[in-house]
């Protein structure tokens, strides 16, 4: 038996290695994605005042601190039993939309995109954002500029772009002034223009070249989990959870009912747990007959939602569905779905900025500690993020349970890697390009393992 180790997996967030075991004839016997870190937020948050958690949980991740911040603030709202004033909610949503644009740009162009734009076989020395910038200087410049715009916008709205502090129990700490709104509007317009460009660019120059790879690498069949508003429209900040089976039928539930629908399985070779759909029977990652496995993140959200509320993104969604159907199973299409969401968030940010309520000073209600449980949930860029807290009568935390976007995708990532390795490695023959395509199957999920093992 031969063992191939890919370590570390690059252009993902967090730390992992891939182990591929070949049998005596050189074919793939088994594969493992070993997540090698474990962090402990669920333990060390116990005893802390619950209102401090939105400021502690952000440290789970420097890439998506906003998602943890907002999920934590929402769990706080629930613990204290309050509903934020409308302006407070809208400011949170605005931050969410802007943070999303920044992140989807990051992932498409810095992390996954390099494989497509430069080609999966390109030498690793150019298969990165610097390579993209050298080959397409104009695109490179716009990418960097638009990410920077996102960061600047968050700085204006919240003071602190990374590890933010402004979503508080009961609302949002800092109102938005008219002067700030005026400053933000042209920035938001520029980001929207870039989002339009990005999807057009990808549809013309990137995806057509790899249609064949799209159809074969990492393809598996699973269910999907995402958040929708009451009427089934895509919602990234608030709504109900919709868990869809591979055949397109679904069940829906409120955040605090998640424990009845989702369980977490443990395997001995990774610190990362495997969430699964409890209601679908026993958990199995068998490629032929998987059970209980569902995916999250962009592909999943665009599968479970019935429509998108903004016009440009809705038009893109229709075109995408016409091409690929619903639910879409092709793993590498995460990247296409990601660009549709980029467009949605860019449109959404402008809508929110034009909402007269956004500059209201009524952004927050005071709260009083009590013993309670509160579940807060948002769609993080990498999937459904659940924060579940319990407190004593002084508002000190007694229990924490977290399920994070990437964690949901643990089983699918492992299955996609196995599928990709089995398809690509035959009779002991493999090279850099092939091993990189195995890594591409991981990258499509945009996994954030430091998040996922946060608490685990």
């Amino acid at each position: 038996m031969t063992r191939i180790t890919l370590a570390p997996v690059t252009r993902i967030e967090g730390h992992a290695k891939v182990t591929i075991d070949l049998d005596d004839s050189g074919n793939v016997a088994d594969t493992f994605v070993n997540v090698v870190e474990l962090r402990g937020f669920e333990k060390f948050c116990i005893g802390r005042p619950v209102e401090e958690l939105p400021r502690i949980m952000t440290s789970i991740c420097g890439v998506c601190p906003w998602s943890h911040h907002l999920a934590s603030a929402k769990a706080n709202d629930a613990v204290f039993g309050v509903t934020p004033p409308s302006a407070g909610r809208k400011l949170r949503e605005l931050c969410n939309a802007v943070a999303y644009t920044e992140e989807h740009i990051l992932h498409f162009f810095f992390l996954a995109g390099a494989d497509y734009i430069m080609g999966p076989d390109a030498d690793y020395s150019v298969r990165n954002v610097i390579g993209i910038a050298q080959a397409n200087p104009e695109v490179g410049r716009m990418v960097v500029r638009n990410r920077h715009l996102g960061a600047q916008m968050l700085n204006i709205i919240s003071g602190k772009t990374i590890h933010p502090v402004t979503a508080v129990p009961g609302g949002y700490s800092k109102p938005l002034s008219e002067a700030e709104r005026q400053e933000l509007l042209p920035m938001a317009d520029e980001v929207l223009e870039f989002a339009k460009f990005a999807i057009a660019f990808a549809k013309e120059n990137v995806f057509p070249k790899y249609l064949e790879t799209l159809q074969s690498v990492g393809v598996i069949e699973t269910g999907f989990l995402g958040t929708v508003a009451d009427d089934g429209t895509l919602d990234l900040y608030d709504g109900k959870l919709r868990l869809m089976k591979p055949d397109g039928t679904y069940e829906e539930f409120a955040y605090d009912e998640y424990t009845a629908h989702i369980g977490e399985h443990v395997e001995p070779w990774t610190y990362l747990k495997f969430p699964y759909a409890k209601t679908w029977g026993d958990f199995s990652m068998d490629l032929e007959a998987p059970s209980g496995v569902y995916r999250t993140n962009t592909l999943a959200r665009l599968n479970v939602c019935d429509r998108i509320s903004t016009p440009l993104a809705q038009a893109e969604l229709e075109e995408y569905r016409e091409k690929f159907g619903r639910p879409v199973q092709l793993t590498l299409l995460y990247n296409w779905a990601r660009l549709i969401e980029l467009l949605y968030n860019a449109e959404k940010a402008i809508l929110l900025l034009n909402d007269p309520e956004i500059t209201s000073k009524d952004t927050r209600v005071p709260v009083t500690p009590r013993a309670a449980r509160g579940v807060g949930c948002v769609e993080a860029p990498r999937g459904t993020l659940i924060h579940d807290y319990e407190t004593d009568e002084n508002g000190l935390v007694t229990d924490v349970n977290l399920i994070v976007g990437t964690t949901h995708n643990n089983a699918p990532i492992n299955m996609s890697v196995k599928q990709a390795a089995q398809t690509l490695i035959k009779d002991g023959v493999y090279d850099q390009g092939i091993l990189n395509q195995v890594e591409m199957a991981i990258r499509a999920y945009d996994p954030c393992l430091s998040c996922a093992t946060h608490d685990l």
Partner: protein
Amino acid sequence: ALYEKVYRESKTTPPAETPADNLPPLLDRVYGIDEVVPVDIYIPGCPTNPDLVVAALTALLEGKTFEMPERSVCDECPLAREKKAAGGEIKRTLDAVECDHEAPWSDTRCFMEQGYLCLGPVTLAGCAHKEGGNGNGVTVPRCIKGHMPCRGCFGPIRKGANPMVDMMSAISSIGLDAKQVADRRALLNRYIGGQNRLRPLPQRPSR
């Protein structure tokens, strides 16, 4: 204990053995990075300020050393201080600070003096950005700009300082009772777990 919580005492997980195949085990405690590899330049902050990254890289390229001046976040904070608290008890961040967002920052009273625990006095300066509109060009620490008190993410002002002790005296000096701080030990030490500071206590403090 962490393994217990994660793999055996979690709401959503059927109890299981701790994973160990082909995986590195946890370390015995939190290590500061300079306990493991030699460090040439320290850039503080969680996260840091991009301006500092530029300054540090420039210094490196020019072969110069890079050091942060020993100033506190308060030294860069535009809020009005009167050297004594407005009175009352130390408050948690459960309601809004008093701050008129449209007025100049100097019209707002220091959050600590309003009674909200702020780690500005014991935290290294460097996070603040220059303001355009509101503050007429003053520098404003990031969290203060978000109308929230500082939590010390730039670390202590001097290497090896003890922010907890220093903060307790800062609190007393403006006439507040440091004992009222909820979850004092964790709150005042949030960003300094390395160098063997974060280790199991002989007995859990009753907060």
